[in-house]
């Protein structure tokens, strides 16, 4: 069983994330220490708040480099949630700090077509359509998740978009780039859909199927 290291960088509701992993039978622990990141075999970057605050939180705890090495060199599977996923990008219109730059994407403010005056943030449950089949196995259609965000990730490569939802425009709901995965929505607030998705993430970590372990 792979231990999941949930990065604590001062932002985000970590309680629900840890609890949901534990509920599905995964082992998860919180850490803000570079040495734990160096040893991690699976990572989760949660987050709620301002882009610049997120980057500052990572830098103050000297986590940017260990995370970069883990994700890009050791190819550790990493799941970003909400702001966590946005930090993977090159930068955000929300702030001035550069992002981690792990995917060819930029974070932009939600802007709707002329005359469409729907509320920002995009807050509430929304239907998600997925084209990726590891994180979203069993969730490709009919899945709903809880969103709260005013900015969204715009990917340069279409193949990096794992799932989309519709809110005035097509919004990237999830990304996937090799070992990097991210969701704009909150699995930890999306009850059974979130549990299924986190379960899929956990399953993707197993090097061999359960039967081979006997």
């Amino acid at each position, binding site marked *: 069983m792979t231990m999941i290291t949930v990065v604590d960088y001062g932002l985000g*509701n970590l309680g629900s994330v840890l609890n949901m992993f534990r*509920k599905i039978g995964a082992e998860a622990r919180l850490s803000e220490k570079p040495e734990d990141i160096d040893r991690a075999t699976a990572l989760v970057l949660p987050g709620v708040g301002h882009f610049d605050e997120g980057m500052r939180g990572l830098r103050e705890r000297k986590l940017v480099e260990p995370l970069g090495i883990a994700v890009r060199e050791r190819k550790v599977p990493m799941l970003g949630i909400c702001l966590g996923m946005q930090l993977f990008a090159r930068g955000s219109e929300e702030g001035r700090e550069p992002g981690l730059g792990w995917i060819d994407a930029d974070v932009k403010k939600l802007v709707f077509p002329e005359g469409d005056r729907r509320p920002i943030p995009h807050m509430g449950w929304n239907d998600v359509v997925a084209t990726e089949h590891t994180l979203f196995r069993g969730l490709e259609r009919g899945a709903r998740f809880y969103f709260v965000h005013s900015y969204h990730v715009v990917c340069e490569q279409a193949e990096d978009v794992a799932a989309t939802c519709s809110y005035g425009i097509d919004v990237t709901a999830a990304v996937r780039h090799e070992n990097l995965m991210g969701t704009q929505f909150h699995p930890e607030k*999306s009850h059974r859909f979130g549990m299924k998705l986190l379960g899929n993430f956990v399953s993707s970590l197993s090097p061999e199927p359960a039967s081979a372990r006997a």
Partner: protein
Amino acid sequence: MIPILLLKDGGLVKTTKFASPKYVGDITNVVRIFNEKEVDELMVLDIEASAQRRPPNFELIRRIAGEAFMPLSYGGGVRSVGDAQRLLKLGVEKVALKTGAFERPSLVREISDAFGAQCVVGVVDVKKSFWGKYEVHSHTRDSAPEPSPVRWAERLVREGAGEILVQAVHRDGTMSGFDLDLLRMFDGKLSVPLIAAGGASDLQSMRAALGACRLSALGVGARFVYHGPHRAVLVSYLSAADLDSLQRVTR
């Protein structure tokens, strides 16, 4: 369909007409049950924080937020932007204000400006006077600057509340149906989503409420924690089929 859970002395209680609170169970257990039932949103209200002039029980709220696998609204004793900030950091999605707004309507504006209108629910509890007139209810010595429920709700919206919860005190805990006259008074009046609570009983009562007023949700208390004529404690929700049938009733 939002279960509304009431906190008193750290436990889950249910009131009748905002009085006689009866212990129902451990709140984190009940939240876990609602997780199983795939409830889309939960509201927790501390019914004595304001009366006791104390702040929210942040430690308990942290535990509740950690257990809830759905978005959470919390109200009770929120009197400052700092209180709201702490709640949001703990994993609460929306902060509900009632007494805090009576004392200082600008509190709504401050929290709304700091965190966004979508984080603020204005709570308008409504009682029916002896003469049958609707008035804003208070459970403390403070009273609403504006006694008319609709006008008070409009004031809260002007101050930045992103959502309004209207609760009929006289129907609370009775499972005797929503007060449809009260709901009709509110229909089309507000520019923000409206949640109605107080009196939910069977599906027909819910359909009637949805038909009387344009609502974004129904708040339900007793109906989801009690069962049968002797009010045995049983946590329940609606089936997917029932929920679906209600979606089709809209104004």
